[in-house]
């Protein structure tokens, strides 16, 4: 287990390096460069001054040296400073990441609360109308864009019924209940879509398990159907669900970027989008790196978790 863990940890290093390389390459692909982007908004600047600025950013050095310096700074947690506010990007990211994390974790919870019972019900009623209703939910969930679902939820629960606020954020530490009221609709927009994909997997995985020999043995022993389904079959059936949900959880981080925009939540995604509109490249770069790193970390945790639940994986 330790060796598996170590190997898996080591494997993330080239991945993270690749992620850093792509982000670095994208920064260089900006039409013109950072300096023209920066200066373009300020007005007329002498060419000598532009060259001076380029030297300041290290843009006159060979590319591989630039990458080396940039990577060293990155490893020390230095993501540069915002071109707008002058504040270190890392400081703002630390402030904003909890919002994104809360949103995705709540989304995941909602997905599981909806998907597991729904998938089980669909599997146990295979071919009947409950199953068909489940399939309809799955198809609609896979076809609706998250931001549109968010807007429909705002339309129904904020504008029509007036139950929940349509936008805004209150820190959990200040007012826990108010925080949850603000987070419920955004988390549901993320969670219901993940629930659709998950329901499908719970259903097919449980159906497959119910056909296995050991389930038949359990039935033959005279165990009640409930016991067979929930104690024996469902446990095994949930193993593939863990992987898929884990991988999807990473995608939630991407979805959160858009949902934060819909509900005006001050998370990392909104931070990145504000940076894009202001051509504040260090901000965008920092936010993209953070979310990508979180994504890699989530996938690592899922892999390890999978090995803990299913010992066969380790030897495979």
């Amino acid at each position: 287990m330790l060796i598996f863990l170590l190997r898996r940890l080591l494997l993330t290093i080239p991945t993270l390096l690749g992620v850093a390389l792509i982000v670095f390459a994208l920064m260089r692909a900006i039409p013109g460069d950072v300096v023209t982007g920066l200066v373009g908004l300020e007005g007329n600047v002498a060419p000598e001054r532009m060259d001076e600025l380029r030297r300041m950013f290290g843009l006159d050095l060979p590319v591989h040296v630039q990458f080396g310096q940039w990577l060293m700074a990155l490893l020390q947690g230095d993501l540069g400073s915002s071109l707008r506010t002058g504040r270190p990007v890392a400081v703002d990211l630390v402030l904003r990441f909890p919002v994104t994390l809360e949103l995705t974790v709540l989304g995941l919870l909602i997905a599981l609360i909806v998907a597991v019972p729904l998938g089980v019900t669909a599997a146990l009623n295979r071919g009947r109308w409950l199953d068909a209703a489940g399939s309809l939910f799955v198809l609609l969930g896979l076809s609706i864009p998250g931001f549109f679902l968010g807007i429909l939820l705002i339309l129904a629960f904020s504008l029509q019924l007036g139950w929940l606020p349509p936008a805004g954020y209150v820190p959990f530490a200040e007012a826990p209940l108010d925080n949850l009221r603000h987070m419920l609709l955004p988390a549901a927009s993320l969670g219901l879509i993940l629930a659709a994909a998950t329901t499908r997997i719970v259903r097919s995985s449980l159906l497959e398990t119910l056909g296995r020999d050991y389930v038949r043995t359990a039935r033959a022993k005279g165990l009640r159907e409930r016991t067979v389904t929930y104690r024996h079959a469902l446990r095994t059936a949930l193993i593939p669900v863990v992987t898929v949900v884990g991988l999807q959880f990473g995608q939630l981080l991407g979805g959160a970027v858009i949902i934060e925009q819909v509900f005006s939540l001050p998370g990392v995604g909104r931070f990145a989008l504000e940076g894009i509109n202001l051509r504040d490249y260090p901000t965008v770069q920092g936010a993209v790196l953070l979310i990508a790193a979180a994504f890699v970390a989530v996938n690592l945790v899922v892999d390890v978790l999978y090995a803990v639940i299913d010992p066969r994986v380790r030897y495979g």
Partner: protein
Amino acid sequence: MAEPTAAGLDRSTSDRSTPGAEIARRLIMGAGGVGLVFVVLAVVAAVAAPWLAPYDPIALNPPARLQGPSALHWLGTDQYGRDTLSRIVHGGRASLSVAFAATIFALLVGGTLGALAGFYLGALDTAIMRFTDVLLSFPAILLAIALLAFLGSGFANLVLAIGVVYVGPFARVARAAVLTVREEQFVEASRALGSRDLRILTGAVIPAAAAPILVETTLRLAYALLAEASLSFLGLGTQPPAPSWGMMIAEGRRYLALSPWATVAPGLAIMVVVLGFNLLGDGLRDVLDPRLRRRR
């Protein structure tokens, strides 16, 4: 040398024509047929937009702004008095052409990389798959957002941003599909006949591995459409005044309380077309490979 191979291919295609018709029949009779109808309707509407749309999609008509559905404007009007139905029909052009172009880009690049990896294995395989692993270590939409943020928006960049994101999935599917057929006898036969690698790949391996790749292509079109809508919603995709569905939702939502039609109608348009591609993809998977049916 080429003769026997060509004859062999001819025979195999003619042998397959009857099951081919059977597959088409089963696809159309099932839910896949419904999906096909949605997709064809959307494509026809987009292509024929200038003739179908009752109004100019970008002509302003302030006195008629934010109306609900009426005989004049079936789906109402937006905040500038532009006809929502006309904008949806025209918006489909942007959304669908980006989705198709991006998916074809990903299919060509990712499919080629995956096929090469699965065919040659070894160091080339390792290099290609490590590269796709890195592409896949971003949340999909984030990579597209980052690309557009740094490259700027516009049709070509939008296609590139969405296309690059799906190179990884296509490479994986193509590699897996090629792996399952590369040891088959007809591949060996082609090799025994002295065919060169390129001919073995294009003549024997790829046609046999095409089914899962076709299914993947159809389902990716659904994702690409969702991605285009999301990016346009964020203001990174299609630029105004040309309408696109995602952008219409972003513009309409500011007037959500006054007139939800301008927001809800383009959202439903996205849903119907994405649903169409999903149904078609699922249907294709069911008829092309019944074994895959239970996995999802």
